């Protein structure tokens, strides 16, 4: 019981700060506008050619790309979980948390919950902006809720990874660099931005096993096609499974790193 409430108050602190940092909120909104506006328009022209569209299996590139942007935003937001721990350790706040009778596990869980809620807010913003650009969401409100859930669990994976790294990486710059170093290639070797039909064979092979592809899959299915559980469930299962796994790993690493 206290694990849940403690987790919430750890998360609440991060959320107050997230909403207070106007820049981060603005970037959250501007980034998808840029991606959809620039990328979507540019690539949209290519995919306007009916032969290309058919060969790639993509009829509306803007709608195709929206799930990619969702996942990309989540991918880059995960690092904040780890960064907040690095910062808390630096200023002594982590010690203050550890001196309080809160459930120890609540600290990494709370950080991850905060990232997940931020992801949820960001996803909603992207969905709104995409709708304004004329993207039609096949599965409506329930589908949007569904894709939010997938995105948030995907965010939990990223947050947990950055939290785990933060146990041994003690400066924010290094952590940022390493997380970017991991997320960039993950992004471009997945089907987030381009359909696998447009990829050379070797890349398509990597994309098939890339977890990012598993996260994009169900979201894209919900945006473009509908409730085909046979296409949604496998991706969802992999993402939720990985989220639980990485959350437990981050938990173990955190416990070890904070016992002196």
């Amino acid at each position, binding site marked *: 019981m*206290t694990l849940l*409430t*403690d987790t919430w*108050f750890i998360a*609440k*602190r991060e959320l*107050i*700060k997230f909403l*207070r*940092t106007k820049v981060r909120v603005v970037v959250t909104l501007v980034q998808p506008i840029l991606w959809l506006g620039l990328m979507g328009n540019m690539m949209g022209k290519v995919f306007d050619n009916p032969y290309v569209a058919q060969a790639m299996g993509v009829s509306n590139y803007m709608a195709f790309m929206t799930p990619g942007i969702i996942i990309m935003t989540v991918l880059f937001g995960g690092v904040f979980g780890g960064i907040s721990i690095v910062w808390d350790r*630096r*200023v*002594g*706040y982590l*010690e*203050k*948390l*550890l*001196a*309080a*009778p*809160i459930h120890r596990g609540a600290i990494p869980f709370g950080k991850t919950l905060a990232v997940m809620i931020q992801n949820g807010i960001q996803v909603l913003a992207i969905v709104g902006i995409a709708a304004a650009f004329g993207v039609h969401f096949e599965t409506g409100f329930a589908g949007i809720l569904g894709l939010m859930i997938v995105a948030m669990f995907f965010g939990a994976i990223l947050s947990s990874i950055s939290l785990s790294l933060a146990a041994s990486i003690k400066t924010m710059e290094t952590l940022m660099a390493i997380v970017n170093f991991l997320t960039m290639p993950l992004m471009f070797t997945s089907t987030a931005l381009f359909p696998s039909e447009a990829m050379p064979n070797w890349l398509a092979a990597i994309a098939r096993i890339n977890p990012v592809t598993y996260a994009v899959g169900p979201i894209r299915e919900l945006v473009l096609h509908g409730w085909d559980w046979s296409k949604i469930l496998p991706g969802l299962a992999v993402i939720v499974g990985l989220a639980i796994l990485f959350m437990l790993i981050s938990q173990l690493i955190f416990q070890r790193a904070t*016992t*002196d």
Partner: protein
Amino acid sequence: MSKTIEVENLVKVYRNGVRAVDGLSFSVDKGEIFGFLGPNGAGKSTTIKILIGLVNPTEGRLLVNGIDITKHTTEIKRATGYASQETAIDDRLTAWENITLQGHYYHLNGREIRTRSEEILRMFDLYERRNDLAETFSGGMLKRLDIAEALIHRPQILFLDEPTLGLDVQTRQVIWTYIERLREEHGMTIFVTTHYMEEADTLCDRVTIIDRGTIKAIDRPEALKAQLGGDVITVSFSANSEPTSVLERIRQIEQVLSIEKNGNGAHRIMVSEEGEKIVPQLFALCEKEGITIDAVSLKKASLDDVYLHYTGHAMRNAEESKETHFKARMMRGKARRK
């Protein structure tokens, strides 16, 4: 008197092999203000962190409120309050947000948190500024807020790690007034570290001097100063007077340890304590005997002397912790921005 803290043969070896605490034994009474003094890296912060269950001891027996702290960490955490050397305030939150979150970390209910936060912030003169971001606070305000937060769950024992570090004289006095008030009004036991000797001297009931993880001295400040020879009264009598009988009477006063004549003909009277009370007696005696005094001076023994006696004069740069450096840098940066 009941013991609030009992430590026996405490040893802490960090994972990197540093032996930060090396066999400490001491006890703290209920309602006592207990000072912990020592050079950088002496092991003061480490000792506190062990006593609040933040760091695991390598060896030793530790009882807080009669409870073994290694077995009942949560209970100890509820009974103790801690304001760290680093002043751990989240400066992107307001004072109110900082203190109420702290209340939630201690599992208080919403109403308790609101009434106590208001009460404590008023006591620390921060209530008017409660809705300002902590990043707009001065170093003194941050420190006050940090101590205020440590009180939200009404701890029986308060651990203050350098509560007056880097503060001006006025703020330091204000903080010490709070500390005394907490002891008076709530019978709180206060365990405090400081590098300011005169603070420890006037405010602590007992002080401990530690160095390299071991206790060098532990006693009331008065007693420690007395051991080092106490106060010195230097008196020069008029050249034509014969003070032998006066000196004989002075020698019989209980606190007077010895009298000797120094190079320029003045007499040095060593007094174990309260030299200022001996001086009037000296005057009275001389008046009765018709002896004139040319000059008199009183040098009070200071805790500085005691401290230097036990810890030596060498600086302890090498052992200064990294976090301390970082914090000092941040504080300096803050001062520059102001």
